[in-house]
């Protein structure tokens, strides 16, 4: 069991609807420092909507989200990114025409201080900054074992590796909180094992807190500390993997009730 710390992300009574469709109703949970927190649930349960609320893509109609004690309601993704939150996407959203290296370098954007004119004139500080960031990005490339693809346009890489690049770009931001939207969707067993290993390593080596959505219950049970279960936009379970697995509501949501 990992040592987890204080609450870093506190989600309180979040409700979100699109027109008449209730995507989330009254969801509350918290995420502790250094924790791997999974969000599970059947299709359409509201998992991605929840992640998008935390990420500032959707503005929930009710409720608050507090990040390290700072409450926010109306924030866009960029402001959330500035607060140290990075994410990956369920359906890859990489910069397809750009190389792996460039994709990861964009993740360093917030760390760059030189302005447009310094870059355009190729002044010393801008060049120095670029090579500093490059060193960091190369470390991530090594970490994710994608060295042979450094200069390959991402669009030409196999799917499993693109998922890795997506993770790499998020890691390049040196996030304190990492949101992973189905990092293992569409992967085979071997790729899933690799990805699980990377997620555990990130958590271990960088101390990054991770919130992850995943369908593969085996993986969830293996790597997460605590699990939130959603069904039809409501929270039906919250606790350690064992507790959740034995919860009557959760079992009926997944397997149906006996009549």
């Amino acid at each position: 069991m990992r040592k987890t710390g204080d609450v870093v992300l506190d989600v309180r009574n979040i409700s979100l609807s699109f027109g008449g469709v209730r995507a989330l109703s009254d969801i509350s949970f918290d995420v502790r420092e250094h924790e791997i927190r999974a969000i599970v649930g059947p299709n359409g349960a509201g998992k991605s909507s929840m992640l998008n609320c935390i990420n500032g893509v959707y503005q929930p109609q009710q409720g608050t989200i507090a990040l390290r004690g700072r409450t926010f309601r109306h924030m866009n993704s960029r402001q959330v990114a500035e607060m140290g939150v990075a994410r990956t996407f369920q359906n890859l959203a990489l910069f397809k025409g750009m190389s792996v290296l460039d994709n990861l370098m964009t993740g360093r954007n917030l760390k760059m201080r030189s302005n447009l004119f310094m870059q355009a004139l190729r002044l010393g500080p801008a060049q120095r900054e670029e090579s500093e960031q490059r060193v960091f990005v190369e470390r991530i490339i090594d970490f994710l074992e994608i060295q042979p693809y450094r200069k390959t346009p991402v669009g030409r890489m196999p799917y499993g590796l693109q998922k890795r690049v997506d993770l790499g770009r998020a890691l390049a931001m040196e996030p304190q909180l990492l949101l992973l939207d189905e990092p293992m969707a569409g992967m085979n067993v071997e790729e899933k094992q690799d990805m699980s290993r990377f997620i555990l390593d990130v958590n271990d080596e960088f101390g990054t807190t991770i919130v992850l959505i995943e369908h593969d219950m085996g993986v969830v049970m293996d790597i997460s500390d605590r699990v939130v279960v959603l069904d039809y936009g409501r929270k039906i379970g919250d606790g350690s993997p064992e507790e959740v697995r034995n919860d009557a509501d959760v079992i009926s949501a997944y397997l149906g009730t006996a009549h």
Partner: protein
Amino acid sequence: MAFFLETLFGGLMVGMLYSLIALGFVLIYKASGVFNFAQGAMVLFAAMAMARFSEWIPKWLGFDNKVLANVLAFGVALLAMVCVAWVIERLVLRYLVNQEHITLLMATLGITYFLEGFGQTLFGSAIYKIDVGLPKDPVFILENTFAGGVLINKEDLYAAAIAAVLVALLALFFQKTATGRALRAVADDHQAAQSIGIPLGRIWIIVWSVAGFVALVAGVIWGSKLGVQFTLSLVALKALPVVILGGLTSVPGAIIGGLIIGVGEKLSEIYIGPLFGGGIEIWFAYVLALLFLLVRPQGLFGEKIIDRV
């Protein structure tokens, strides 16, 4: 032979100017994935601003120095284009984040009509001239090789040089700087770009300003050749076959495409034109573009889009 070379050079010069306009399209497409219909209107607007301010500024400030007037007018016109970029981001683009590309395309169509009308309201609709002092006299080269030499228009030569330098600088900016990288990132995926903290608004203002700058340079050069009038916005239509040929996503493609179209239409007019009774210069570029669309829709240097099914 001398005549062939003369035609060839003439084509290259015109082609360089086509490239300059095509570049405006490519810049905005690369950075926001939008085909900017308003590029022609921006060229017209910029050229009108330049023409009128170079006339007004000496009057307002009471001096009589053409170089100074032109420099100041260029500065003010550039400022005007940056303002246009800022207003477009503020009033239009900001509300269209994460929307379909077709929505953005329609928005630029609206911007076209607005800019054309607003420009004429502001600067008047007469024909104005821009005189930046490009030498008009022709020169002869290769006089030793051919009898009578090859005639080249000096003005075209300067214009081509300016265009070439501009193009080289922009290519470097896009490929080698962090901001250039952020611009390309925004083009590929708005949402992902935002999630890693790239400020979309600022990026859009930068790219529309750069496109405005390119429009201004194109407007000044074309304007000093043809005079500043409404038809200037139609020159931009010639840039469409250029981007189809070169590829919408490629800065070098815009240049090569421009040169091919420029040379192609001049040479074809001279050598194949008589077969069709002449006048093929007008439509040659479009036919070429059509053929390209059939054979290689992504253009010579464009990114090949592979959709996984």
